[in-house]
């Protein structure tokens, strides 16, 4: 099942788990901010359900971290400062102008583009994790994969329909996708420990191999909507190395407000 547990191996497992957990946690947080604001009620139900599933995926990863002695899983999700987070830049970006409780001026095109790119990238990673050298990750990957199947299908449908509906929707999707791609530089990065995560310990395939998987997943959709597959930029800041924007600070503050109000409570 798993390789001999040396401190280096354990460190690599933990690094990877934080990236996966923090990605899904932040993605869920941004999804939860759409509650009640989606274009129609069926979408509100769907988006909430996807968000709930994804929070469950984050929980699975944080629980593995807890089992590896990193501390209580709830605290790991709620209390770690931004410098310790391993999520990609794409998921920490706000949904748009304004604040959820006041005047959210969110862009549905951006939500669809971001969620499509995120879900397909997640699919590529999950496929690679199904053959991870670390047994517990391998098991979780199979479970997540089945739920992700519906998420990916959902966002692919929206992505395709908005790109092919009207001239206006197509042009808005094009600009949304451009915005999303600008932030996707670190999506397939594993940060400084990349060689040990893939080559040394075979926890996950190389960054290049996963990008290839991703390309295969998205190619038919991009062909259908007749746009070229975008080139991912070199990351200017890399979330995998704990580099983040202030958007992440405020997201953590909002998300953990209730939890921090009583740290001794049993949730």
């Amino acid at each position, binding site marked *: 099942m798993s390789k001999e547990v040396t401190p280096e191996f354990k460190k690599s497992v933990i690094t990877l788990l934080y990236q996966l957990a923090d990605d899904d946690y932040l993605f869920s947080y941004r999804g939860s901010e759409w509650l009640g604001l989606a274009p129609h009620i069926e979408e509100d139900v769907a988006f*909430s359900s996807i968000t709930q*599933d994804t929070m469950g*995926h984050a929980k*699975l990863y944080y629980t593995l971290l807890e089992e590896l002695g990193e501390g209580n899983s709830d605290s790991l999700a709620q209390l770690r400062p931004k410098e310790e987070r391993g999520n990609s830049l794409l998921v920490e970006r706000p949904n748009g102008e304004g604040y959820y409780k006041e005047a959210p001026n969110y862009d549905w095109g951006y939500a669809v583009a971001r969620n499509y790119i995120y879900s397909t990238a997640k699919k590529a990673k999950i496929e690679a994790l199904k053959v991870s050298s670390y047994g517990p990750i391998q098991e979780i990957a*199979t479970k997540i994969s089945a739920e992700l199947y*519906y998420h990916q299908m959902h966002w692919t449908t929206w992505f395709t329909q908005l790109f092919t509906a009207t001239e206006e929707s197509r042009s808005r999707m094009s600009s949304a996708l451009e915005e999303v791609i600008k932030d996707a530089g670190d999506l397939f990065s594993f940060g400084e420990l990349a060689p040990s995560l893939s080559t040394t310990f075979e926890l996950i395939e190389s960054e290049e191999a996963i990008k290839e998987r991703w390309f295969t997943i998205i190619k038919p959709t991009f062909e259908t909507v007749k746009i070229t597959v975008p080139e991912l930029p070199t990351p200017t800041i890399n979330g995998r190395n704990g580099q983040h924007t202030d958007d992440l600070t405020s997201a953590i503050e909002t998300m953990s407000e209730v939890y921090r109000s009583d740290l001794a409570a049993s949730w």
Partner: protein
Amino acid sequence: MATTDLHEAHIYEVLDTVKDPEIDTVSIIDLGMIERVQVNDGHVRIEVLPTFSGCPALTIIQQNIEKAVAQLKNVLEVDVAFINSPIWTSDRVTAKGRDGLKQFGIAPPPQFLKKDGSWHVDCPYCGSTYVTIENIFGPTACRSILYCKSCKNPFEAMKLISTSM
């Protein structure tokens, strides 16, 4: 029953009384959630497969199992563990479970995906195949929303979950 007599079979009998918190016509056994039961001198360990990762009912189910099993004679300790391997798949729902779901107005999970990734279920009320999927996602993570064009009833269906997805 002798004082030391506590068998796995007794545990299974009790587990069959633990219902899905939202669907009282199916038990957690009907749903195929129980993977293993071990009894050792009054210490009971029950391994449970969570259905959907984000299902908020899991904690309630865990508490309900503990409560039910603890009431059995000679039980000293109950340990309920959620395990991730094997994963729960919708084909684990038993024939009794499929009937129970229908009774509740929920179509049992479809058996297989079509080539294009879609699936089909029949109306749990009138049996018609003339149904449309209104939303793959439903009020809970495990259900979808459909509409029967024959008897004009909206209904829910349990989603298909398999290891090949």
